[in-house]
């Protein structure tokens, strides 16, 4: 008989063994032996920003783009652009948003998804712009938890080496 993988009664020990050898047996309190293996999975998506593309291309040019409903009687202005109006369904047109605004809300994340754990702690903020009907979610940098407050004036910064991601823009406290 070939050797069985090692047996553990604690699930965390099973997880550690998977890191080491890729297989382990979990012996449950109810007596069953379950074979547990490591099962990797990764994928590269061909992700198109499609109708949102002008926003992300705008960031690379140091511009913050919103959209405005083209129907005269509506005219809703979006701080996170959408190519059709949520209120009336008409197409919207692109506009330049102000690069200054105020914190509508904020938080400091001390943990995060696996992909972002190494960046913690980081601030998320919803920014409101004068004369704009909806908000924009961004990272807020150069501000500690004790410095942030609702209504705090903030301004945009752009990455000079764009990655074509929403992280190409971030906000900092207004000087």
């Amino acid at each position: 008989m070939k050797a069985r993988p090692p047996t553990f009664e604690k699930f965390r020990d099973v997880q550690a063994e998977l890191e080491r050898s890729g297989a382990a047996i979990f012996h449950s309190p109810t007596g069953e032996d379950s074979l547990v293996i490591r099962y990797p999975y990764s994928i590269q998506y061909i992700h198109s920003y499609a109708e949102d593309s002008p926003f992300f291309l705008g960031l690379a040019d140091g511009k913050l783009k919103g959209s405005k409903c083209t129907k005269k009687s509506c005219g809703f202005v979006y701080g996170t652009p959408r190519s059709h109006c949520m209120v009336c369904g008409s197409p919207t047109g692109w506009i330049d948003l102000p690069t200054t605004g105020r914190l509508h809300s904020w938080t400091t994340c001390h943990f995060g998804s696996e992909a972002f754990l190494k960046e913690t702690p980081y601030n998320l903020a919803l920014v409101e712009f004068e004369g704009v009907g909806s908000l924009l979610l961004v990272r807020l940098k150069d501000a500690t938890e004790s410095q942030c407050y609702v209504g705090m004036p903030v301004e945009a910064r752009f990455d000079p080496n764009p990655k074509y991601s929403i992280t190409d823009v971030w906000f900092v406290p207004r000087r």
Partner: protein
Amino acid sequence: MVTGGLTKFAKAHPEMDFRLMVKRAYDYALKGIPNLTKDRIDGTRISYFSDHFSRQLKAASMVQDYLGMNPKGSVRIEWGGATGGECFQAAYEAVASGRMDVCLAAGYETMSRVATWKGNEFIALASDTNFDFPLGGFYTGYYALMVVRHIYEYIRKSKLAHVTDEREAQRLAIAEGQRIMSWVSVKNHRNALHNPYAQYPKRVSVDDVLNSEMISYPLTREQICTMSDGAAVAILCDESRAREFTDKPVRVTGVGTGTDTMRLADRPFGKVPLFAHEKASDYAKLEYPGVHSFRAGRAAGLEAYRMAGITDPKRELDFIELHDAYASSEIQTYEDLGLCRYGEGYDFTLSGAPFLRGVDYGLDVPKAGEIPVNPSGGLIACGHPVGATGLMQGVFAFWQLQGTVRKHFGDGTLQIKDARRGAIHSHAGTGSAVTVSILERGFR
């Protein structure tokens, strides 16, 4: 509803895959009603949230298969965190429409198959992947953004209106909000001490909750539900068959659903849809829902209450099992569901109204028992295996209304005396979808 069953919710059940978990919950449900055999079930509705967690697409087919239900009709239900609540309503609709006489609703999630922070990533993929996820996609962060604004609207602007220094006022307001949210956590963990299905029953103090690890300011670890493995089933049927299967059926008298934008940033600033006990002048200065309240929850409540003929939910409901993925969202939901007005959720908590009478929380709760919320312990203490959660609430509510909590829990502490009508409430990411169902005792 004529029966229900559950597995214990746990951090990990490596000895059972999702099929066996559902089978165990299903067998438990059938055990109580011998007249209901598999051949009487016309079809199923099966719910799980994420294909990522089990790395098995079309997993509902494998549940259908394992239960031996082929070739009966089935469909998989998914609606984010509200998946279980939607599954319950899908089974209700199958019966109410006459398409089926007897329908099995079954749900599960096996979240232990990936590490916790990878699991958080999967959940965060249920946010806009162009604009939200790449910023550090993290649901606790999104709910923190919402409660910071809720605290600003309802503590800073009212109770602390006299403080002129804005930063100081907001700092004090958040501290007060954190303290009151901790009461919810104390309540739900404490209730769960009498619920053998719960993942994290324990006695904790407000200080324990406040001093637990900060996850996303101002939410601490003890104010947040956890990853879980578990399954739940509910069997629904028409009225004549219900009496054949059990002398204690429970009637579904109202169903409601609501939705809102996927991105928090897109939430409107409009007017509050009102319950009968509210006036437009109550909210003259309030921009609604913004990011502080769940418009989907209000819409679902309005629809379900209207159908059930409820005008004053606090008086006309005996209990609510609601979706407390975060202690903050439990308080926000008190307001959405009309247990109090918008802005009164913190005081409502401190009044003790959502606590159980006769349970020692180590807190002064003068109005305990007025409208118990999450007598089971809710998601915070029971766990949140997404596709099972809304059905778990249905099963707990069913046992409450039958008066069989002692039988199923081996402990009658959580039984609400003479409970006749309750609500279950299931909620998807940042309030993008909510279901409310009203259940009533269907026997004398």
